[in-house]
């Protein structure tokens, strides 16, 4: 029986059967997909690594706390009217003088530290995500073009990237702030501060995306499936988006995860330096900065708790990124 292999032995091979499978519905296909995922090596490596599962849980918790803050936070720290100086500088509940209403204590204004952390984390996460998405779109786009088109354009983009890379993110962000501060009128500065922050952090991290995507694109571009698409007469843009992009997204995902952690840290750093988000929307970095003034006088909880939250979030995201890189790169296993 020439040209027969086990596929055919299972099915006599008629179009009707294919059609029948088709009408079997999307549900079956979704189940199939779920099954495939649960059975996949990636999910397996996730299940087998307790530390990754824990990191995933912590990340999830941070997300719930941050974006559920308006509903689940004990106090609304954005509402100045609820603040009472009588409750200022209360220690955490397990220390003497602690108050059950303020589990992690209060700051010098009488703000609940726990609630402040939840709202602060929201700001941190929004800035982190937005800047990573900005960097990703910019970097992936430029990387694709650079790698696919090549030539002088590639050369130019990569030289710019080199220069950009030699200026660390904090410095770029600071410079942009200096710029914004001098260009924009005072009144506008607070309104656009978050946008400037996102722009600054995003701008400083696009290079990594661009370089990785360019490298992978140059590899993929010479693979024969891309040439096959060119032979068919497909135009460069569809080839880039439909053929190359899906195949370079693996490393992009890893970089995005690691950069999310980095962006959150950078945001905190800038806010700590006093050039980040305005004090009216305190992020974790801002909280640490405020708390830092009271560190020496013994009110450590104002610094340590936001700091712990920040490190926990960054660490969890980093762990996820680390796992993702190993899981997507079977060579390392």
């Amino acid at each position, binding site marked *: 029986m020439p040209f027969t292999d086990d596929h055919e032995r299972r099915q006599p091979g008629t179009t009707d059967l294919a059609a029948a499978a088709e009408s079997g519905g999307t549900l079956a296909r979704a189940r199939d997909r779920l099954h495939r995922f649960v059975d996949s090596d990636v999910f397996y490596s996730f299940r087998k690594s307790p530390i990754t599962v824990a990191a995933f849980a912590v990340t999830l918790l941070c997300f719930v706390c941050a974006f559920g803050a308006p509903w689940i936070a004990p106090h609304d720290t954005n509402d100045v009217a609820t603040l009472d100086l009588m409750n200022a500088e209360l220690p955490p509940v397990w220390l003497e003088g602690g108050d059950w209403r303020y589990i992690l204590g209060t700051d010098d204004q009488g703000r609940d530290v726990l609630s402040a952390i939840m709202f602060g984390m929201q700001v941190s996460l929004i800035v982190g995500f937005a800047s990573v998405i900005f960097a990703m779109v910019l970097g992936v786009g430029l990387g694709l073009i650079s790698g696919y088109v090549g030539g002088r354009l590639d050369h130019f983009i990569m030289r710019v990237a080199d220069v950009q*890379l030699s200026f*660390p993110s904090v410095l770029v962000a600071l410079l942009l702030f*200096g710029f914004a501060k001098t260009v924009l009128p005072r009144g506008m500065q607070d309104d656009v501060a978050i946008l400037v922050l996102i722009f600054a952090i995003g701008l400083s991290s696009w290079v990594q995306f661009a370089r990785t995507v360019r490298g992978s694109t140059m590899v993929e571009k010479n693979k024969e499936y891309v040439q096959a698409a060119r032979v068919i007469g497909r135009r460069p843009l569809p080839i880039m988006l439909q053929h190359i992009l899906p195949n370079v997204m693996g490393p992009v995902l890893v970089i995005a995860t690691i950069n999310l952690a980095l962006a959150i840290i950078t945001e*905190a750093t800038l806010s700590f*330096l006093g050039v980040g988000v305005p004090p009216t929307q305190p992020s974790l970095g801002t909280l640490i900065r405020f708390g830092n003034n009271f560190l020496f006088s013994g009110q450590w909880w104002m610094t340590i708790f936001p700091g712990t939250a920040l490190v926990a979030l960054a*660490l969890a995201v980093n762990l996820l990124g680390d796992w993702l890189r190993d899981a997507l790169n079977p060579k390392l296993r």
Partner: protein
Amino acid sequence: MLAFIIRRLFQSLLVMVAVGFIAFSLFNFVGDPVNNMVGIDATIEERQRMAESLGLNDPFPVQFARFAANAVRGDFGQSFRLSVPVEDAIAERLPATLELVFVAALLSLAIGVPLGVYTGLHRNSPLSRLLLTVSLIGISLPTFLIGILLILVFSVWLNWLPSFGRGETVDIGWQSNLVSLDGLRSIILPALTLCLFQLTLVMRLVRAEMLEVLRTDYIKFARARGLTNRAVHFGHALKNTLVPVITITGLQIGNLIAFAIITETVFQWPGMGLLFLQAIQFVDIPVMAAYLCLVAFIFVLINLVVDLLYYTIDPRLRIDKRVHGQ
């Protein structure tokens, strides 16, 4: 080789011109320089004269050329905030930053490279796994938080080391921390703070490169020839990881200079970073411009050195790819 250097020099020059242009724009278009020089009650004639004497009425290229010429001589004008020539302010603070960066770079390489090699060679040992997890914490800890924690532990609770300032410095051509005991005590915490993040990066990078090289055919072939582990690991593998490691080290030094801003803020270390941060907060444009140019210059210099080091390591760059054997 010569062509390569010339190309690099040319590119460096381009970068410097671009940075200079940004700095110049800061000067001339951001805020009104005349306003910064004269009082608010100055008359229009006085302003005119000021603008004339500053050359603000000259065509744009002439102004930029003048700025560039001054910048090359190190003349960036007066600091608005400190009312001293910018170059003096920077000259005073440069040694503090450079010493800090030097010590931190030394620490991160001296600890990071061996740890990276170790974790790369024994990638399944318990110690490697521990080190890797700890290094992730290192990456997740923002520099400023490390500083705060170190201060809390070693200054506030244990009271072993000073929490801020340079302490006693000795003039050895510049004000140095590295020759007196008090100075050394003062530099420990800031240098540790600064190096920790870079250290973890160096370690993880060396490890990744090591793993990459250990998978190559020539390592397999070296093993198949019966070379000792020592020869394979340190002779063949390590040298091949050097090229990327040097690249990253170059970038790290740049990073260190930037992160020095944070460290100097936390420890009130009187360096360039602190000066720059204050300049940003007070919109002290000449200082910002000068800092920008200086940092760019340092980066360009480092990149050049890195490129030259490539040549000494990799013979493929040294000799043209001419293939004999016909």
